[in-house]
């Protein structure tokens, strides 16, 4: 069955090609069928492979398929190959499964769009790239997928290209991602430089033998990888593109900017867990950035009024949790949360899409309210997912978030744990604020708009996703040893022998005549304590309920209260303006450029500059202007420059 692996990404690629080239000719209906059908086939093949993987003994669950040697240059050998193991299988299931539902949903949501086929061609292309990313068996494959999803995301954010804000958002996302990609590429090069290979199996096998625990090389690699991950997964400091990315159609937000692409960074960190395990410093960086982002984004989420932006900040915050989990070594918990998050966040986004659809494009929550009687199905599913994300027993988010908090505490880091708990409180608050403002209370809907429930093709995926969000937690039942299915499943991939690595590193250090630092703390395995876990569960349940109660009090009981509370509070304005981070980036990248051009060029074309992106472009543009002056068109000047170049080279040669 595994030799069919190549089919999984191939189907969406075919779909993309068919829709891209013949989409206009075959009609809307056929486009929808092609797009969904190809993804459905991928899902089926993935299911078949899952079945076979289940019947393979745990330690043999690694299958590699090399389609062809992509290139072999000197010692360098990159294969176009796939790797099927428990980790990639989880990701494939999420990508194809959730992806399929979102494709179906899009048929309804995008129904009135003119360039329907273009949307589906991009969406299928995205599926293809994402599957390459998770299925590749070497870093180069991951990088190709990584670039591919970035490009598709760029196309899809800018899907409504008539809107300038959409185009700008696309460009912002693309360029911010390239900052991360650059770091990722450097990491790959460094890995190749150190190991002479970029194949996962070989690198991770060789890492404990070649590298010294906690030494510079492994720390640099992991930090570079993590910078790459912050770009793609919208973490501090490269997160500002994600809220703007909500300019894209809502299914795109659900698929790319919630369920799959933005979690690629988490996948990457987990995939490289061997390397991260060997770099304690990087681990704490990952944990603190994750925890910080979790709180930071949550606070912004509390103040936003655009329904999709709230969800976007929530996504940033939840991915922060995943990185927090990675940072404390709880990779299983990270993947667990990734999976449950994919379920409930996809459901939330699709639900918000259904609301927007029902209100003919209204996204401002201040113009919603009392929608539960107009959109009952959307309301119920949305509520279930919200309860899940808030962490209410026994919904999926409860289990996954609780596991992260438990590991954070067990790792002995109370600060991180405190961050996590605070984040949980905020999450429950802002999510229920969203629910109350949208579905409860008085209707503030524009009287000309008549809200209506969405068609079946949209609500059915919602129902399925809500079901998954409700019961997804069963994948990882805590407390009872051996019942945590996901933990057992991922164990072969994440297995890491810290003790022998430590010994080996000591040995390596002794060879160069240095002493090993005190690593013994790394070896201490926290004792599993059922009672701590249970009390933590109760605590987080209380926290979540507190948050919900707070939201209920502020937005249902006394709807005027929040406005009074925030009146004149500079703190609120700061948060509402997203901590002025965009302005900060503007001020640091754009403003000096403007001043500089004014000063040096007498007239700086300051108009239309927003975002750090254009700032950089301006700097380069200014250089270009200078180059233009030099490029005068006169032969004598060109000759002069040749002579100057000659003098320069001569100077360098002899001095």
């Amino acid at each position, binding site marked *: 069955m595994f030799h069919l692996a190549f089919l999984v990404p191939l189907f969406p690629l075919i779909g993309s090609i068919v829709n891209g080239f013949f989409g206009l000719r075959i009609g809307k209906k056929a486009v929808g069928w092609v797009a969904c059908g190809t993804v459905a086939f991928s899902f089926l093949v993935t299911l078949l492979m899952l079945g076979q993987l289940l019947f393979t003994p745990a330690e043999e669950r690694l299958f590699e398929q090399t389609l062809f040697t992509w290139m072999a240059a000197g010692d360098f050998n990159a294969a176009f190959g796939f790797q099927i193991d428990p980790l990639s299988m989880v990701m494939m299931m999420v990508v194809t499964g959730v992806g399929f539902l979102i494709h179906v949903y899009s048929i309804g949501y995008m129904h009135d769009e003119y360039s329907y086929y273009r949307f589906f061609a991009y969406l299928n292309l995205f599926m293809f790239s994402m599957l390459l990313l998770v299925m590749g068996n070497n870093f180069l494959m991951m990088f190709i997928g990584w670039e591919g999803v970035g490009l598709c995301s760029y196309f899809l954010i800018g899907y409504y290209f008539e809107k300038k804000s959409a185009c700008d958002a696309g460009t912002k996302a693309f360029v911010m991602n390239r900052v991360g990609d650059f770091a990722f590429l450097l990491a790959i090069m460094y890995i190749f430089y150190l190991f002479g290979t970029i194949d996962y199996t070989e690198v991770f096998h060789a890492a404990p033998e070649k590298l010294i625990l906690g030494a510079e090389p492994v720390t640099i690699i992991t930090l570079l990888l993590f910078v790459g991950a912050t770009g793609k997964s919208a973490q501090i400091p490269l997160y500002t593109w994600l809220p703007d990315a909500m300019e894209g159609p809502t299914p795109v937000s659900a698929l790319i900017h919630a369920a799959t692409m933005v979690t690629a960074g988490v996948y990457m960190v987990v995939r490289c867990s061997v390397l991260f395990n060997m770099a304690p410093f990087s681990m704490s960086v990952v944990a603190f950035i994750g925890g910080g982002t979790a709180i930071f984004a949550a606070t912004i989420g509390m103040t936003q009024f655009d329904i999709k932006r709230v969800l976007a900040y929530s996504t940033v915050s939840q991915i922060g949790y995943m990185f927090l989990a990675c940072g404390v070594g709880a990779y299983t918990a990270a993947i667990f949360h990734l999976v449950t998050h994919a379920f409930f966040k996809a459901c939330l986004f699709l639900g918000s899409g259904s609301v927007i659809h029902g209100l003919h494009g209204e996204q401002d929550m201040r113009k919603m309210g009392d929608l539960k009687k107009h959109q009952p199905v959307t309301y119920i599913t949305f509520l279930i997912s919200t309860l899940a994300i808030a962490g209410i027993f026994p919904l999926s988010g409860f289990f996954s978030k609780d596991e992260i908090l438990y590991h954070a505490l067990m790792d002995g880091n109370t600060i991180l744990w405190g961050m996590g708990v605070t984040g949980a409180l905020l999450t429950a608050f802002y999510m229920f604020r969203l629910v109350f403002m949208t579905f409860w209370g008085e209707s503030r809907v524009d009287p000309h708009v008549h809200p209506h429930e969405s068609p079946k093709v949209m609500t059915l995926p919602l129902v399925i996703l809500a079901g998954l969000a409700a019961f997804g937690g069963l994948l990882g039942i805590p407390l009872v040893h051996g019942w945590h299915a996901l933990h057992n499943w991922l164990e072969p991939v994440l297995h890491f022998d810290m003790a022998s690595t430590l010994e080996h590193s000591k040995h390596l250090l002794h060879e160069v005549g240095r002493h090993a630092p005190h690593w013994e703390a790394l070896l201490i395995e926290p004792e599993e304590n059922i009672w701590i876990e249970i009390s933590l569960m109760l605590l987080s349940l209380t926290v979540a309920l507190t948050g919900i109660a707070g939201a209920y009090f502020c937005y249902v009981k006394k709807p005027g209260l929040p406005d009074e509370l925030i009146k004149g509070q500079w703190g609120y304005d700061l948060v509402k303006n997203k901590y002025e981070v965009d302005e900060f980036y503007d001020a640091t990248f754009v403003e000096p450029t403007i001043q500089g051009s004014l000063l040096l060029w007498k007239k700086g074309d300051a108009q239309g500059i927003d975002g750090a992106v254009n700032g950089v472009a301006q700097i380069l543009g200014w250089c270009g202007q200078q180059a233009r002056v030099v490029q005068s068109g006169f032969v004598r000047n060109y000759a002069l420059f040749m002579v100057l170049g000659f003098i320069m080279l001569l100077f360098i*040669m002899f001095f």
Partner: protein
Amino acid sequence: MEHIPSPTVDLVSLAPVLVLSVFAMMVLLVDLYVKRDKTLVIFISLVGLLMTAISAFAKFDLPVHSFNDSYVVDELSVFFIMIFTLSSALAILLSIDYNKREGIRMGEYYSLILLCTVGMILLASSTDMIMIFLGIEIVSICLYVLAGIRRSDPKSNEAALKYFLLGAFATGFLLYGMTLVYGATGTTKLGLIAELIREEQIASKPLMLMGIVLLIIGFGFKVASVPFHMWAPDVYHGAPTPVTAFMAVGPKAAAFAAFFRVFAEAMPVLSPSWESLLCIVAVLSMFIGNVGAIMQTNIKRLLAYSSVSHVGYILIAVIAKNSLGSSSLVFYMLAYAFMIFGAFGIVILIGRKENEMLEIADYSGLAYKHPLMAISMSVFLLSLGGMPPLAGFVAKFYIFSAAIKEGFVTLVVLAVLNSVISFYYYLKVIVYMYMKEPEGEFQISLAPMTVFVVVIAMVGTAGLGIFPDPILYFTQH
């Protein structure tokens, strides 16, 4: 009377040059007697190129040195001959419809391309500085004329004149450099020079170093590297588009072959002294090429600047100077040939008789009217930028890994940074094609031969990207 040493004549190894020269002259004569229809002339030219490509395999047991070690047939030269014949053939195919449209009726055009190819073959196969000079001059003179072949167009004239004046200037540098190297070593043969350097029997080190600087300038001009690049945008802009594509690929590849032979093969021992110079030239080329390209509104100038930046990347292969360097050089040139001919093919297709449509703004909304063309253009541009899994990515990757192997990490980091910058302007064109409303009407007549070239280029760009292995294998063995 003293005995004249007669050289070891080996006409078989010279076969590609001879075959192509004969065909070039044939084209010249045939053209005299068929006035209107150029089909026969074009046919003969293409057959000639095909025969040349075949005759390149006339020698086995490579490398074969002949003519007193001034001419060599080795893997590098054979592979380069393939690139030359391919690029010349593509250029001729591109010209068929273009020349008809722009009213270029001179049959000499084809003959000049063939003669230029002769020069390129000589350049890539010479191991004697005099021969290299000869090759460069044959190439250059043909190009001067080709650049100005649209006699009624002032831009074309300007291009030709500028290229000629600066080219003559650069030739002076080159020749002077060769003289100084000769002065320092007493020979013009690259093999002997390498030996002398290794045995430290150079008469005067300063003279040698001075010669190296001058050689860098001479070659630097021919490949259009900064700061000797300034002719490139003007000339690329003014020359007829197929000639521009041709200039960007064939002659550049030939100059790089010679560059590699002189520096990496003959003077590797002296590398500490020339390495840093080439590094500076490479980095400058990348930066100035990319920054210059950002400002351009004309697609031909944009591609010209981008080609300057590509020269920077390719120079890294020369700097790496290992065997991986030579094979990555070859691979890059091949990939580059496909990308450039593809991109210029589209440029030609979009133009029409009265308006060549060379402004980037002219590409607005191309994706709505002609999605296939927009897709192909995007593929070529993204490949030029180095987007996996296209040919440009593999080529860059290959050069970078050659350099990493020699420890030029900083250089590679700068190069990667630059390819990131380059995406800005490549994407700019794509944004125009996909995200702007069409400004005017496109009147595109799909000229069959040009489409054919674009298809070949497309297959090459995608094929080399997805299945680079066979070619990589071939370049390494």
